[in-house]
């Protein structure tokens, strides 16, 4: 019930006013002077105060000032009671914190209207105070969440190769996570993989996608997956994780210093610029794909492109925040100017020159939120070794071991055992630098065992284009009704120069005429289907088929200094 304090020294007026207020359904407390008004106020916390201006001792103005000074959060409306007239008095009432006036003789209807209005005012003030508190709470909660997101993200995303000599980068200060992500790591063969991403949105929404993206990138890079695999997996994951309408523009690079190649894929980011040191010419890596998180797996195109590079070449990457930086007149920095600056800059100073030009363009504007600039330098393979690749922690890792793993029909129908086996193999640090060769050996022997051994498909079908389609139609059908098994036997032995990895793959099939196949392979008589066998011979030191042709044994020798 709304409680009204009536402070009035005149007994007649006090009695009358208390009765009027009571009749309107309010709870009434009375005070006969200013001092009593203050003690009643403290005791009963009234919702509205009706206050006589002129009282002996402490007058109404002083009471009002005290109430205002001692109830900031909780707003208590005050009505001054007086037959005083004249602007000077009214000013004094307002200055003391009064909200309204009521003059004598009292009019019950006017008082009723005023009490209703002031009660509403108080309710609104209380709601406002509650909302303000809630807002403060939410704001601090949001800030805390962003700090958590930032720190979690820093731990996951910035543990890669960003400190190495390959990558110079400027990321906006991440007080609020701005949605730009830079990831870099070496794969087992020593290639440098770099991913620059720009999530739609800022803060938590962006961080939500950044975490799995970083996880997938580092995890799959370490296991030797290729760029297309990593992109496809990232796309699949982001499509699940991100809310509708959110996506991530990405440029991904794989720099192979041994082969002097740059493999790239750009989905939605401004063109990256490859600067050739020899001719001081530039090559633009433009976006040819949709960003990650939009297309479903079937429509997603993860096909990469390849270009040759030389030591000394540089690749400049940025997100659209950089090209869209505006000067005081609202003109954007622009891609053409970026290319121009990159082309003219001294090669060793590309990064610094671009940064200086952009900052000059921005002049005094403080908007540095979305500035991300990255420069990747192509180093000599020799420099790479000196810069120290991933250190190989050999102690405490599996060295000499054997493994037998057999898959039954149910498993073979839908399960791909290769990443799991590859993962186990990569637990042995010395094998990591040979990840792609080992993976190829696993993949070839497995597909031979599955398709020809267990399912009995005729590989010569693949010689013609029509047969190729027929082959895969039969393969899909055979998979449904598949019966049999495939057994992997793996062992790794250590010797003085390195070690030997041995793999035997046995299937439940009746075997094939490997002698005939070997002859045809040597005579180059076969097309596609002979390639698998040739590849195995190229990669392995020994390939032996065992009678009745349903088992193959390969030996792969590795040397300890191959890093």
């Amino acid at each position: 019930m709304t409680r009204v304090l009536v402070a009035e020294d005149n007994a007649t007026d006090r009695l009358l006013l208390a009765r009027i207020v009571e009749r309107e359904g309010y709870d009434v407390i009375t005070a006969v002077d200013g001092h009593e008004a203050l003690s009643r106020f403290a005791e009963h916390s009234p919702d509205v105060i009706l206050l006589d201006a002129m009282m002996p001792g402490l007058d109404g103005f002083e009471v009002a000032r005290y109430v205002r000074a001692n109830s900031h959060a909780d707003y208590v409306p005050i009505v001054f009671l007086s037959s005083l007239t004249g602007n000077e008095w009214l000013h004094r009432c307002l200055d003391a914190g009064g909200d309204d006036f009521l003059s004598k003789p009292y009019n019950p209807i006017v008082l009723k209207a005023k009490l209703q209005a002031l009660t509403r005012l108080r309710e609104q003030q209380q709601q406002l105070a509650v909302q303000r508190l809630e807002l403060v709470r939410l704001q601090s909660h949001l800030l805390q969440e962003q700090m958590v997101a930032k720190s979690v993200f820093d731990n996951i995303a910035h543990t890669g190769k960003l400190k190495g000599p390959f990558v110079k980068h400027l990321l906006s200060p991440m007080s609020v996570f701005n949605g730009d992500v830079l990831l870099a790591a070496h794969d087992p063969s020593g290639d440098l993989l770099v991913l620059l991403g720009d999530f739609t949105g800022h803060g938590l929404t962006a961080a939500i996608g950044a975490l799995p993206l970083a996880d997938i990138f580092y995890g799959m890079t370490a296991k030797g997956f290729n760029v297309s695999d990593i992109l496809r997996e990232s796309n699949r994951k982001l499509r699940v994780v991100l809310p509708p309408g959110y996506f991530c523009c990405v440029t991904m690079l794989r720099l192979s210093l041994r082969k002097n190649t740059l493999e790239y894929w750009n989905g939605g980011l401004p063109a990256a610029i490859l600067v050739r040191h020899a001719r001081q010419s530039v090559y633009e890596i433009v976006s040819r794909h949709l960003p990650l998180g939009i297309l479903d797996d079937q429509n997603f195109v993860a096909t990469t492109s390849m270009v040759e590079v030389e030591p000394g070449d540089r690749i400049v990457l940025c997100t659209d925040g950089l090209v869209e930086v505006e000067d005081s007149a609202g003109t954007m920095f622009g891609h053409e100017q970026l290319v121009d600056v990159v082309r003219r800059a001294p090669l060793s100073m590309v990064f610094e020159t671009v940064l200086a030009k952009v900052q000059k363009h921005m002049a005094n504007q403080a908007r540095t939120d979305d500035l991300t600039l990255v420069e990747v330098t192509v180093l000599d393979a020799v420099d790479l070794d000196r810069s120290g690749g991933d250190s190989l922690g050999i102690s405490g890792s599996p060295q000499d071991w054997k493994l037998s793993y057999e898959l039954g029909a149910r498993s073979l129908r839908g399960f791909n055992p290769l990443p799991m086996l590859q993962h186990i193999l990569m637990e042995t640090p010395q094998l990591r630098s040979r990840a792609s060769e080992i993976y190829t050996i696993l993949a070839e022997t497995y597909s031979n065992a599955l398709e020809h051994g267990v399912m009995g498909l005729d590989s010569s079908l693949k010689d013609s284009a029509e047969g190729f389609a027929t082959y895969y139609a039969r393969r899909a059908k055979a998979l449904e009704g598949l019966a049999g098994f495939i057994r992997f036997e793996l062992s790794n032995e250590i010797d003085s120069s390195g070690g030997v990895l041995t793999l035997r793959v046995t299937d439940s099939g009746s075997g094939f005429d490997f002698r005939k196949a070997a002859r045809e392979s040597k005579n180059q008589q076969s097309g596609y289907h002979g390639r698998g066998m040739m590849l195995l011979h190229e990669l392995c030191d020994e390939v032996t088929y065992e009678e009745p042709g349903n088992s193959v044994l390969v030996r792969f020798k590795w040397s300890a200094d191959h890093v």
Partner: protein
Amino acid sequence: MSDHVDDEVLQGLREIMEDGFTELLEVFLRESAAQHAQLQTLWRSGDRATIVGLAHSLKGSCANIGAKGCAGIAAEVEKLAHQGNWDEVPSLLQALDLEMKVAHGELSRLC
């Protein structure tokens, strides 16, 4: 219809106060008599500074109770005292004395 007491105001008070109407009148009679007596005392003792506040208070309660004649004279006393214009105050206090007696008489009959 009296020139001294406003019947409409009294009717309104009766509705508002219900059972408390008589009590209200009694409180007024007691308080206003005391204030009026105090006003005469202040004038004789020369404590003129307090006269403004007391006249103001008396004016307010007289207005509320419907004693319009008393309220009018008390307002005049308050105004002149506030201005420091004391010459006419004695005659106003005499008029107030008469008016109070009449009004009190009429109100007493309602108790």
